[in-house]
């Protein structure tokens, strides 16, 4: 579901993107907007997972695209997607610093943003083939996962979101985070360990989910 980010799988900029980047570098906003259209959901999703606040995520996303357009002359990399997501993640860390604390979020608000605020939405989060009990459970698990993500240190959160939520390969994550591959590997592993601990502490949702999951296997 989340493992189909736009751009090529390796994150390498394809020919179309190269052409759009070249035109953007000449000041063609229309060409840049085609890149925006291609990546705006990915950028917004990263900001939302990082910040847990739909409004702040939208602001950060818009700001990141402005920054990207202003800095596009400097883009020489192999992956526009990695370059853009690095700008987005830097903007998220700027928000952390501005808040001077790790962000907390209204999980209800976050869930609303996921479901469009529809009271009957939990069922829409999952395949229609799922039974209602499981559909409700899924919505609750989603909220629990968001809550757990927001408790992670920023670098671990970013690494695990890029890896597990957005499905990016380690080398691209390393480019986005400007970190060695080994550091990325370590952050993802530690993030998963922390998430497991946090989720295990939260009611019995996770264990119920686990039981159901294992019964599926």
């Amino acid at each position, binding site marked *: *579901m*989340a*493992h189909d980010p736009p751009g090529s799988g390796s994150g390498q900029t394809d020919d179309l993107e190269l052409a759009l980047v070249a035109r953007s570098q000449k*000041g063609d*906003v*229309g060409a*840049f*907007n085609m890149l*925006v*259209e291609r990546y*705006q*959901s990915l*950028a*917004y*999703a990263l900001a939302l997972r990082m910040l847990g606040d*739909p409004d*702040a995520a*939208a*602001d*950060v*996303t*818009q*700001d990141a*695209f*402005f*920054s990207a*357009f*202003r800095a*596009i*002359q400097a883009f020489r990399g192999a992956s526009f997607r990695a370059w853009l997501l690095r700008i987005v993640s830097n*903007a998220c860390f*700027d*928000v952390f610093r*501005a808040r001077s604390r790790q962000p907390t979020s209204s999980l209800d608000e976050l869930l609303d*943003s*996921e479901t469009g605020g529809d009271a009957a939405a939990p069922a829409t*989060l999952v395949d229609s083939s799922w039974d209602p009990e499981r559909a409700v459970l899924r919505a609750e*698990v*989603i909220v629990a*996962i968001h809550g757990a993500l927001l408790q992670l240190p920023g670098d671990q959160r970013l690494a*695990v*979101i890029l*890896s*597990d*939520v957005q*499905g990016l*390969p*380690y080398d691209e994550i390393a480019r986005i985070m400007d970190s060695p591959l080994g550091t990325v*590997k*370590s952050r*993802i*592993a*530690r993030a*998963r*360990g922390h*998430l*497991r601990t946090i*989720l295990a502490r939260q009611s019995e949702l996770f264990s119920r*989910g686990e039981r159901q*999951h294992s019964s599926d296997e």
Partner: protein
Amino acid sequence: MGSRRHPTDWERQREQLSAYIDGELSAAERAELERHIPGCAECQAALGKLRRVHDLLAALPMPKAPRSFALPLDLRPDARPLAAAAPPRRPAPHRGGATVLQWVGAIAATVGMFLLLGGVVTGLLSSNSKLYETPSRSGGSTLTGAQTQTTPSQRTPDLVTTKSPQKDGATATVTETPTATNTPKASVTNTTTPTGTNGEPGFPILPVTGAGLLALGAGLYIAGRAGRRREGRASDG
């Protein structure tokens, strides 16, 4: 957990298991792990937990962008972001009082405003008195206020004293007022107000208004420049 089998490097073992899930191990590392896991209950359990978290995160729905983030087509590459685009990252406003330049600008603008108002009000009063006086100079009891300032040219010294506190422009007024005493009443009101022509005796509306306008403009400009410079410094810092 794994203290016997992996006494010194459990963290590293977990990293290997985690990377194994993502297919990020080299062929040699993967082969080694796959040989090890079947005989190690701890690694099997750890692998299951890591995979569970991975699967949960991977199952999260991808939120859609709530709106288009396309940039305005007339945007220039060197343009600054829209104000609405960057509220979360605005640097904290620079604290402290206004700069000297801002004070100078503000004072100049205030003085200019007074002069300008003085000139305009005087002009208006003159024109009003003219309008109402011309048809019936004897009547107009309700316009006494206006009349006291404009019609009796002998009273211009009063007018000078009332206007002179208005700072520097007053110097010009003082020098000109004596001539006003010698001029006929009608000519004062008729010539000065409507056209604002110069050289006429009485309150020097045009110079005062002009000076006021100049001072106001200069003051606002100076204050504005100083303010922008401060903003620039704050955002750079």
